[in-house]
């Protein structure tokens, strides 16, 4: 059953020889060279063998440490960026708009009159009639408040 396949014409022509050869006396010298290599590997100190065996694991550990460090410092950088960031005027104005969303001018003025505070913040010393007048003007743009900070 082993040779139940008909070998086709072209394959038959190619024959069963391969084109490879070996250097002179290769097989005569092979066992000796192999023995030298085995002796050399046996002479390698135990510590060096251990390092060779542990090398892939050390590499993996170093890679994981590097990834953790990069992630940690990246995270720290993002957090500290957020903490130190200065708000620009437009952003501040948006925040004021958002905080005062439910306020109209009358409510603001009455709050100031009743409590002497604006949004829980005690006004600066010298809070005066001019400021009250200013706040009571129709169509006030709260972003202007920033200008008077």
């Amino acid at each position, binding site marked *: 059953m082993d040779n139940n396949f008909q070998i*086709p014409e072209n394959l038959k022509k190619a024959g069963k020889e391969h084109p*490879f050869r*070996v*250097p002179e006396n290769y097989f005569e010298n092979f066992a000796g060279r192999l023995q030298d290599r085995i002796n050399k590997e046996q002479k390698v100190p135990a510590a060096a063998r251990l390092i060779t065996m542990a090398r892939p694991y050390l590499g993996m550990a170093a890679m994981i440490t590097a990834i953790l460090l990069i992630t940690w410092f990246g995270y720290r950088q993002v957090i500290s960026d957020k903490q130190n960031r200065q708000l620009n005027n437009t952003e501040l104005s948006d925040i004021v708009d958002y905080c005062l969303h439910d306020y109209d001018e009358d409510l603001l003025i009455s709050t100031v009159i009743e409590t002497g505070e604006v949004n829980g913040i005690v006004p600066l010393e010298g809070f005066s009639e001019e400021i009250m007048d200013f706040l009571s003007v129709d169509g006030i743009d709260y972003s202007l408040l920033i200008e008077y900070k």
Partner: protein
Amino acid sequence: MEEYTDKELVRLFREDSNPGYAFNLIVRKYQEKLYWHIRKLIISHDDTDDVLQVVFIKAFQSLSGFREDSSLYTWLYRIATNEALTFLKRNKIRKYLSFGAISTYLERTLEADAYSDGDEIKIKLQRAIINLPEKQRIVFNMKYFDEMKYEEMADILQTSVGALKASYHHAIKKIERFLKGD
């Protein structure tokens, strides 16, 4: 030199006070067969030499634990096949070769190897073999060149005789098509 059977060689290796002697006999008995088996898979002589040394070193290190479930010959062939395939895989990763590009790499090796010659038809046959899928390549080499029995091949490659016959049949068809076309 006295010719020992595989079982005798293994026993000699285990019992003898100088296992190096017994191992030397094993190397001398199988070096050529294993060399050609590996060479046909990885083409380059220098690489084959290196892989063959690794095969025997691994055999030397594990022979005392060899359970003799299979013959020494089958066991060595299995190590040689695995080492040759591992070498090709490692090379594929190292050289960033894409799927299928390993055949291009082997074809280049065939052209450049200092220890390859022969007439055009033999080189063409090698090119056809190189372009086969890995399993068909191994099966074709073992069956066509080494004239190995399917049962032995099944033992070495740990597969069924039916699967081997199918692989060999496909391989022959592909090679014939390759040889026919220019």
